[in-house]
């Protein structure tokens, strides 16, 4: 029953958009695909572990060590700094390289044209 109603709704919506609003069929297909992806992704997000809950998978030994031993192991009071510039410093080197490459790309492109 529910499925039939949903199908009916979609058919009416399609007719409305196609013939009354005048959307061309290519755009219509794109819109439906986008709608489908939004539908799928929102279901995925709804399934994610509750935000901030203590039994989240993300609250495991990883952040525990960062929080409990971070100051002692890295000497930085700012936990964010101790993660990005000590525990995962290579990622930050990568980010600095991204900036550098972006500049190099802009300069190279502008100078050659």
């Amino acid at each position, binding site marked *: 029953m529910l499925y039939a109603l949903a199908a009916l709704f979609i058919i009416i919506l399609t007719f409305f958009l196609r013939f009354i609003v005048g959307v061309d069929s290519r755009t219509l297909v794109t819109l439906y695909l986008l709608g489908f992806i939004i539908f799928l992704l929102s279901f995925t997000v709804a399934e994610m572990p509750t935000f901030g809950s203590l039994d989240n998978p993300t609250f495991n030994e990883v952040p525990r060590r960062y929080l409990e031993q971070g100051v002692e192991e890295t000497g930085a009071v*700012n936990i964010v700094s101790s993660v990005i*510039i*000590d525990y995962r*410093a*290579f990622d930050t*080197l990568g980010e600095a390289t991204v900036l*550098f490459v972006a500049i190099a790309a*802009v300069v190279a492109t502008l100078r050659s044209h």
Partner: protein
Amino acid sequence: MEDQIARITSRLVVPFIQVYGIYIILHGHLSPGGSFSGGAIFGASLVLVALSFNLEAGSKQIPHNTASILESGGALGYIITGLVAIAMGGYYLSNKAAGFPMGEAGSLFSAGAIFIITIFVGIKVASTIVTLFYYIIEGEK
């Protein structure tokens, strides 16, 4: 474009912005913020000078070549800090394990390599913003 209000305001405000940017970079390991945000603030102050006066006044503050040399230099400093850690017997980008002076947690001169790298990245981000701004504004030159 000559705007009296913009010029006087920016002349007043720019030094404070720069000090604030440097403060945020230097206190990266102590307080929120750090190299990327501090560098962005410092770079924005130089862009502000160029916007409210003119491009020449802006490039007097930090010339083109200096900015692009600083940019490479900041990134090189990061890599070299990592290599120094290897030379001191740790792994690449080690901090305490390599024996960087840790200082007392919470004081300005502490956290060893974090402090050094924050400064390098801050320099790099600031000069990146300035270089990008000039290249896009001037286009072909």
